[in-house]
């Protein structure tokens, strides 16, 4: 079964979503990430969605869940690179992802995570 790879960089976990996701793939990613956070005691998770041309309520919910999950497991999450059209559509859909941290791109996302981890 196909999976979205999770890369480890020190205390950080990096996920880049580059495929048109079906629901099962999203669920698998959610489970895999929870496993990896626990196994590696990662302090932060960065999810790059700049290649996604669409985020519907299912993927939106997955992003929210990952964010909540990792917070409980003492890791920060940041979602980076959301496209303007995707952001506008999500707002129109009624999904404002409260509690999810965002950044413009991977670089800014890393900065944000480093600052947060250092502050702890």
């Amino acid at each position, binding site marked *: 079964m196909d999976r979205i790879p999770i890369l480890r960089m020190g205390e950080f976990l990096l996920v880049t979503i580059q495929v048109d996701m079906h629901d099962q793939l999203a669920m698998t990613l959610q489970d895999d990430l929870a496993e990896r956070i626990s196994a590696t005691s990662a302090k932060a998770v960065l999810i790059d969605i700049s290649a996604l041309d669409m985020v519907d309520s299912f993927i939106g919910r997955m992003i929210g869940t990952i964010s909540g999950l990792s917070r409980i497991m003492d890791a920060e999450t940041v979602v980076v690179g959301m*496209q303007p059209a995707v*952001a506008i559509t999500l707002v129109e859909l009624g999904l404002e992802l409260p509690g999810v941290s965002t950044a413009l791109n991977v670089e800014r996302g890393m900065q944000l995570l480093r600052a947060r981890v250092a502050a702890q």
Partner: protein
Amino acid sequence: MAALLQRTTDTITRNQAELLSSWKSDLQNLGGYHNVKPEELAQQTVDFIRQLISGTADGSADINGPAWDGMRLYLEKLSRSRALLGMDSQQTAGFIFAIKRPLMALLQSEYANEPAVFAEQLWAVSELIDSLGLYTVRTFQKSREEVIKRQQEELLELSTPVVKLWDGVLALPMIGTLDSQRTQVVMESLLQRIVDTGSEIAIIDITGVPTVDTLVAQHLLKTVTAIRLMGADCIISGVRPQIAQTIVHLGLDLQGIVTKASLADALALALRRSGLTVTKAV
């Protein structure tokens, strides 16, 4: 609809040179085609007659049928070129209608001794030319509407300048009455610029906006949320007292949105957030 006789088609085919020349002279008498190049006009008349012959070849007078594919394509091209030259619909359709007189004359001499057949064929040809003329008007109208639509879009984009105030700080000074379509276009271009420039702070200045209605206010709020989802921050500046009243009156929730009285205040905040200070050089 009366059917076209093969004989009618043959008559047209046989006499096309004559038809062409009297049509051309009629067009000249009508005038109004001086901004079409003469050789272009000549080519257009030749093409029309060729398409007319090929269209009537199987006796079908239904111009939406496959026999008329070439003719429809030709007419679309013709109307588009007329629309671009700025001609009106009358001149465009008049070009087609002008062929009626020579065509009638041709039929009259062909069916001189058969008044019943003549009447029937006259009717059939007349209906055919009418529907071709109307088709031209319709496509002409469509081309004009496309031109207008494109211009409107261009105008919208022109009226929405997103300016860079500082490294990482964009501003969108909005001026004039906002309708919801304009707001939408403006906001989209702001979001795109945020991505393109990697700016983390966007200031929407509404000093120049006299009033906002519910829809526009909602668009503003949605934009602020979308900007946050993309990972940037938004400040709204220049909220006039009347607009503040409207927003409160409409019961819109401005929580989590940073507002500043003026663009200057907003820029000061943006600089502070970026870790910059402005000092007087002495």
